[in-house]
């Protein structure tokens, strides 16, 4: 049986609630994980393109924190000295709402105690929350939680080549100019300016020109950044909604946001630490792959602003892919509904069930590497996969292979394909494609 209980004073309680409010913008459920030295709240959106995590340090954030993992290791709820579960935010958020009273009432919340009820003798899987209010009023809640394994997006900060830090208020000011219907945000820099452009990839027919969304681009000086170490001309695009959610939270914390990324179609991380809370948001980016990236045959490239690299550049990239001295950096791709791959979703309990909402234009953070380039001849002097990003139920970066199945969004090179074959990935994928879709046109009845 696991013992987990902690208490929060009013200040940290507000922070805790802010975190939950922020996570609610990503997912319906929040994953709660306890480790001896931290408590982590995280959420992964349904299309698996955005991941948000808040890690609260047990000694500095909480008034008290007790965690004793289940010594009887057979239980599935605790693995490797951790406890993890998930809770519906719709039920959890109202518990914290109105917690301060706000109206200066005597019965405003003064502290909060949370405990997990994991005892076989009692009703199991209950999260017990007690709000200690003034005048001795105690509000108690018992919520059901679901013991589960948690998926994390792993982002290797040391591999990120672009970095900038800025106060959230500048970013917020930028988003004020965007149309409320704008969906995506492209970021790049030119000379002394960092340029943020909102756009929407909605397809409108010619008659509806006036309904097309307004494109807004806002250029701010690089001097507005605390630090700007990103390459000019690198366009990365993320979901504007996710971006706004980060800013809204960072504003409440009044901390400098750090952004780390490598290039388009690779994850971008926004992170900041404050008051014993480590916050990170890993967002998948879109955009045109850089010149050292291989264009994929059938994936439509999101339409960006006119400053975008012209399409002609793509053709020349194709030729360079085979003989460049470097293995082309891998990129993930969206799961496309292809005939004959219905088996892909047949394993709901693997960690890597890749359901992507049809509306999403983003590559998932975790899409299995189904690119047919893995059948290409590998170069000998192939560098290690970049920007490792994978499943890790343990979130243990030091020992990533220690636990269970995991995925990289990077494609395996032939060098490590052998290691990869024995994990659940292959079940996940069914039979990998052997031909490009673009080559199939000759086989159709009506071609």
């Amino acid at each position, binding site marked *: 049986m696991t013992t987990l209980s902690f208490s929060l004073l009013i200040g940290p309680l507000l922070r805790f609630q802010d975190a939950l409010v922020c996570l609610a913008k990503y997912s319906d459920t929040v994953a709660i994980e306890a480790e001896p030295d931290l408590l982590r709240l995280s959420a992964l959106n349904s299309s698996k393109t955005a991941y948000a995590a808040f890690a609260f340090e047990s000694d500095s954030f909480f008034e008290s924190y007790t965690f004793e993992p289940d010594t009887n290791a057979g239980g599935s709820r605790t693995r490797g000295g951790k406890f993890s579960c998930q809770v519906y935010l719709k039920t959890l958020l109202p518990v914290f709402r109105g917690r301060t009273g706000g109206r200066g009432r005597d019965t405003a919340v003064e502290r909060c105690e949370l405990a997990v009820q994991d005892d076989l003798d009692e009703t199991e899987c209950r999260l017990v929350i007690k709000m200690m209010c003034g005048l001795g009023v105690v509000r108690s809640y018992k919520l059901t939680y679901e013991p589960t394994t948690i998926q994390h997006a792993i982002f290797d900060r040391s591999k990120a080549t672009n970095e900038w830090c800025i106060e959230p*208020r500048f970013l917020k000011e930028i988003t004020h100019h965007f149309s409320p219907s704008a969906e995506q945000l492209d970021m790049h820099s030119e000379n002394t300016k960092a340029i943020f452009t909102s756009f929407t990839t909605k397809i409108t027919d010619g008659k509806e020109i*006036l309904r*097309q969304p307004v494109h807004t681009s806002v250029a*701010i000086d690089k*001097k*507005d950044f*605390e*630090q700007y170490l990103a390459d000019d001309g690198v366009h990365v695009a993320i979901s504007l909604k996710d971006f706004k959610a980060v800013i809204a939270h960072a504003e409440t914390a*009044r901390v*400098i946001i750090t952004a780390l990324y490598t290039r388009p179609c690779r994850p971008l991380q926004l992170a900041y630490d404050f008051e014993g809370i480590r916050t990170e948001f890993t967002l998948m980016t879109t955009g045109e792959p850089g010149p050292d990236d291989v264009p994929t045959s059938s994936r439509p490239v999101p339409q960006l602003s006119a400053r975008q690299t012209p399409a002609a550049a793509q053709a020349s990239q194709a030729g360079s892919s085979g003989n460049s001295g470097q293995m082309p950096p891998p990129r993930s791709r969206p799961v496309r509904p292809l005939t004959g791959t219905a088996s892909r979703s047949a394993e709901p309990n693997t960690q890597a069930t890749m359901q992507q909402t049809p509306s999403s234009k983003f590559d998932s953070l975790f899409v299995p590497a189904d690119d047919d380039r893995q059948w290409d001849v590998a170069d000998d002097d192939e560098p290690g996969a970049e920007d490792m990003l994978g499943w890790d139920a343990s979130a243990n970066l030091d020992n990533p292979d220690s636990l269970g199945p995991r995925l990289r969004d990077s494609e395996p090179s032939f060098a490590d394909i052998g290691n990869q074959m024995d994990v659940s990935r292959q079940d996940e994928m069914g039979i990998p494609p052997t031909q490009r879709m673009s080559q199939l046109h000759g086989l159709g009845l009506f071609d």
Partner: protein
Amino acid sequence: MRFRTEVVNTATLTKLVGSLSSLGKVCWMRLEPSTIRFTIIPDQGTQVWAQLPVESIFEETDYTLESNTGAINLEVPLSSLHRALRSAAAAKWVQLRLTQKNRVPLLALTIRARSRVKGGIALGTTNASATDPGDANDRNGNGPGEPATATAPAPREDGGEGGGGRERETFITQEIPVKVLHETAVEGLHEPRCRDPDVHIILPDLFQLKSISERFTKLAADSSSSLKAAASASTSAPVSGLSAPGGSMSVSGVSPKLELSANMHGSLRLAVATDALRISSVWTDLANPALDPSQLSQTQIEQLPSERMRALPGDDEAGWAKVRIDGKDWARVLSVGRMNPKVVACFIHETALVLYVYLPGGWSEDESCLTYYINSYLN
């Protein structure tokens, strides 16, 4: 076809577009060498014909207009334009030009905004430690109530700009998709013509008129909807089913009609009548502006219907010209009050109400005028 100009009077343009956007989704914007016209012709409701001299909103010396026909006609989505213009609220310099991208014509609004980093321009965050967390040591008398070192500051690259604050510059480009209308598409459009008004009067403060109108509309809507609810409870309720998919009108069916009437003795009456109630407000001592004598001869003036109305005594009901207007639509029309204009209302008895809205400012009145044509409903 080319159009490029600097917007010098962003506030006026923003307010104008804002008040127009309450009346229609799109407007016909006609750019001519010396005037700009905004026209809204909705399927139903009030027509607006607004004409402004170029210099009232644009920089005259920086106004480029090239077109075969001498004018450019655009169909512009008003809410997008209004939103885009709001970015220009604190702008130093605003440029508006016609351009295109991927064969989609665009009105591009380029805005250069300046602000100072320190000194409270920030949005909400007045906390100085968030503004500049890197150099907390060289400011210590910085005002009370700051959570001192709550933040975990990122390492500063350069300490050079920490001290005195700094001017920031932001460039914002808003690209609004528009439709270019061919001259043949608009040549059939003409301003409505109506006969000479029976009564012309300067409206009282529009804000007051608007709030009273809205109050009346709401009272009438409440009373009629409760009546309707009672009626539909007794019958088998086909009424609400009819009106439900109607669109912009209120959910409870057709919105109430207000009775607006005025005489040539400075009185204006706003009234609403339903089966359940009858209320009215009367303004007195308003001005009935004199017509320009230079345009009409004395005998012509004497023959005008308004002069006949003026001859009738103030307490004679025959001296009142009356129109019935839609309450919701009227409230939208009155949103032009944000421009703080002078409004002359011309009543054509039982036919129409024409509002001449003159914008404040140094421009001559005939040049910058918004004309609202409101049809009177039958009783």
